[in-house]
C-alpha cells in the first residue's frame, strides 16, 4: 500500500480515487457504472467526512461508501444480474489493448480469467478475492470492509480461488498430466 497523504480531504480522495474506481469496477463489473459509482462515492465521502471517526481505516470507510453506492445504483438499475449479462469480457480485454500483462499470459488466457472473474464468481467471492489476493488486504480487513465475519470471508476466498485457479489450470492440462 502506498503512503497516505496527511493533508486535506481532497488530497486524500485524490489519493484514493483510482482505488475507488477499481472497487466500483469489481463490484459492478461495468466500466460505465463504475464511473458513476466513483463520482457519487466521492461526493458522499465529502458530505460525510466529518462523521469519519477513525474507528475503522479510511480504506474501510471509503470501501463501505463505495459499496453502498454501487449496490444502491445496481438496485435502481433493475438488478445486477441483468447488467452482468451485458458485460463483455472480450470488449474489456480489447479495450485494455495498451496493457501488457505478464508475458507468459496470452490474450485468450487472460480473457478466460476475466470472464471467470466476473461471471463465475459470486459478488462476495469476487470482492474478497480482489481485496485479498489481488490488492493485498488481510482477510480480516476484507471482512470488515464487506461487513461480514472473518470465517465467512475466508470461505468466499477459498471458493473464489478454486474457481479462478481451476480456470487457469484448464489452460495447462499438460502441466497437470506431467506433475507427479
Amino acid at each position, binding site marked *: 500500500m502506498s503512503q497516505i497523504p496527511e493533508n*486535506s480531504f481532497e488530497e486524500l480522495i485524490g489519493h484514493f480515487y483510482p482505488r475507488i474506481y477499481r472497487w466500483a469496477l469489481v463490484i459492478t463489473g461495468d466500466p460505465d457504472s463504475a*464511473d458513476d459509482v466513483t463520482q457519487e462515492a466521492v461526493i458522499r465521502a465529502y458530505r460525510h467526512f466529518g462523521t469519519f471517526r477513525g474507528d475503522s481505516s479510511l480504506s474501510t470507510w471509503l470501501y463501505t461508501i463505495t459499496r453502498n453506492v454501487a449496490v444502491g445504483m445496481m438496485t435502481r438499475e433493475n438488478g445486477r444480474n441483468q447488467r452482468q449479462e451485458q458485460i463483455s469480457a472480450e470488449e474489456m480485454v480489447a479495450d*485494455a489493448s495498451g496493457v501488457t*500483462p505478464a508475458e*507468459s499470459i496470452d490474450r485468450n488466457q487472460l480473457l478466460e*480469467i476475466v470472464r471467470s472473474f466476473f461471471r463465475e464468481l459470486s459478488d462476495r467471492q469476487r470482492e474478497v478475492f480482489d481485496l485479498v489476493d489481488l490488492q493485498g488486504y488481510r482477510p480480516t480487513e476484507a471482512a470488515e470492509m464487506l461487513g461480514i465475519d472473518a470465517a465467512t470471508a475466508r470461505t468466499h476466498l477459498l471458493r473464489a480461488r478454486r474457481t479462478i485457479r481451476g480456470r487457469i489450470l484448464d489452460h*495447462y492440462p499438460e502441466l497437470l498430466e506431467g*506433475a*507427479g
Partner: protein
Amino acid sequence: MDCSEVRELLLECDITDLQGEGNPPLGDHLQDCPGCREIADEIMTAESALNSFLESRNPSRSYEEVAVELGWIDGGKRIRFFRPLPLIISTAAAAILLVVALPLFNRNVDLPIVGVSTELRAELPVVQAPSEKTALILDSGNPDYQIIWLF
C-alpha cells in the same frame, strides 16, 4: 506430500504458500518438484495479469476533472476544506476541563503535586509515569476521585 495432494492444495492456498514460503512441507515439495513449481508459477502469473488488467482500467474522467466540476479545485488552485468537527471536539473538551477544574481551584482545595520521584502521600495512588513523562496527581478532596495528569 505427493503431487496430487500438492495440486489440491494449490487450488486454495495463500499466495505465500504458492511462493513456497508459508507452508514448509508444501514449500519443500515445490522446491523439489519442477512440475508442481510450474503450476504454482502459472497461477501466480495469471493472478498477477488479472490484477494488472484491473489496475489498467481508468475512470473516464480524472479526479482533477471531477474536482473542478464539484468546485473543489478552482483554476488549478486547491481549495482547503474547513472541517469544523475537530474544532468542535477540542472546544468541547476545553469547556469540560474548565467546568471540572475551575471549582476545584476556586475552593482552594489543597492540591498536592506529586512527581514520580518524590515521596508520595500515603492516601494518594502510586503512578508509574512512562519514561520522559511526569505524573501529576491532583487531590480532588473527594476520596473517590483523583485526577492524574501525565505530561
